[in-house]
């Protein structure tokens, strides 16, 4: 276990790097996912088709391939960027599909009766959306969205395996691969790093769920 304590700085940097990627991707994927969810529930058929196609294609495609396609495919058509950008973009594209489904299922979880009641007291479309549907949908969206976020943190390890330096996964590569430190403690340290992010996130999610459940 000396490896971990000897390289605490490296691990801490890795943790920070992972958090950095995750924060960036979380924001971007949330925005893109909500837009896509808007497409999927839109009354405009072509937009719905785009949303459906996006989700079907991206969800069934391994993240690894998305990442490879970004990093090695895009430069072929003159789109250049750093691995960090490509990695974050790939993870965003991938995660957005899941955000979209979470948001859509949240809207779907709102009872149609609520919308009908809203309409029948004379609320307009935007009023019923703002005052009745979204406030309830947001509650229903929190648990699945939280799970998407946790999955995203774990998927950021794939981005790491793929060559973005400076995050948790690459710590294992540096210590075990390049420096030849024993694998078990090195990987144990990396797992610990992810758990440091994921376990509190899970607890936070649980607390959020509970809070919103009580509030109704």
């Amino acid at each position, binding site marked *: 276990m000396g490896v971990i304590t000897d390289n605490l700085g490296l691990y801490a940097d890795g943790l920070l790097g992972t958090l950095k990627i995750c924060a960036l991707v979380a924001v971007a994927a949330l925005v893109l996912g909500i837009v896509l969810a808007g497409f999927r529930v839109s009354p405009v058929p072509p937009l719905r088709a785009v949303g459906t196609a996006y989700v079907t294609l991206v969800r069934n495609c391994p993240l690894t391939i998305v990442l490879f396609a970004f990093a090695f495919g895009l430069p072929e058509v003159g789109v250049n960027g750093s691995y960090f950008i490509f990695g974050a973009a790939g993870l965003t594209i991938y995660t957005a599909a899941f955000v979209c489904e979470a948001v859509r299922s949240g809207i779907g979880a709102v*009872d149609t*009766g*609520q919308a*009908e*009641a*809203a*309409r*029948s*007291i*004379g*609320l*307009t479309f935007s*009023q019923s959306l703002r*005052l*009745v549907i979204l*406030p*309830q949908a947001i*509650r229903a969206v929190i648990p699945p969205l939280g799970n998407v976020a946790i999955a995203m943190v774990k998927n950021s390890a794939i981005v790491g395996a793929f060559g973005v330096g400076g995050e948790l996964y690459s710590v294992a590569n540096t210590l075990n691969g390049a420096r030849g430190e024993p694998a078990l403690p090195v990987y144990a340290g990396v797992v610990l790093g992810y758990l440091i992010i994921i376990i509190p996130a899970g607890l936070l999610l649980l607390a959020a769920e509970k809070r919103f459940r009580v*509030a*109704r």
Partner: protein
Amino acid sequence: MAKSARGEPLIVMAGVEKFFGAFQALHGISLTVHSGEVLVIVGPSGSGKSTLCRCINRLETIDAGRIMIDGEPLPEEGRALARLRAEVGMVFQSFNLFAHKTALENVILGPTKVKRIPREAAERQGRELLDRVGVGAKAGSYPAQLSGGQQQRVAIARALAMEPKAILFDEPTSALDPEYIAEVLDVMAGLARDGMTMVVVTHEMGFARRAADRIVFMADGRILEEGAPENFFDSPRTQRARDFLARILTN
């Protein structure tokens, strides 16, 4: 108990047809509800009672025929439709109170957001309405904290808060525990006495007999009989109605 004077025609349906895919739920429905009238719709499950109700405030679109409210055709969309809906209240079988709002907030949402009444005035009126339906003490409770009977009475108060010209009730007591049924029916009977125009889908034959001005009997998407309660219950003209009454009145 039926009121004597018959008001102006308020809701007029003429030749209304409604399809769900290939299935025809309503066949050439023509029906007039007069101002101040209490119309009770009865009929077996799946006969189209709810559909008829829901067409009146366009929760369902119709495929043929016309619906007029207070002399004007039912608007198809937009603000005009929203305004019309505010004039025709609706009470659902499953209450449909806004789950994230207290009883009082449920009641004042329409007045403040649609009619733009100042919040204070709306709250005052809201509390009065909650008192009127007997749940004044529960103004601050969320729907999940209320019994079914209480929820349904809040829903009635919510409909009343818009000062509608008519209220549609779609099996308002079917989702209630038996002991709460009476309290909701009492509130409805009170409204009827006060001259509210009401269209009521219900299986409560006692209420129908007591409170209705007119009974409509539906089966298979058609209106088979229409008449005063005493005529319908004591001498139904069709075999379908006789069968229905026999089955439902056994217990």
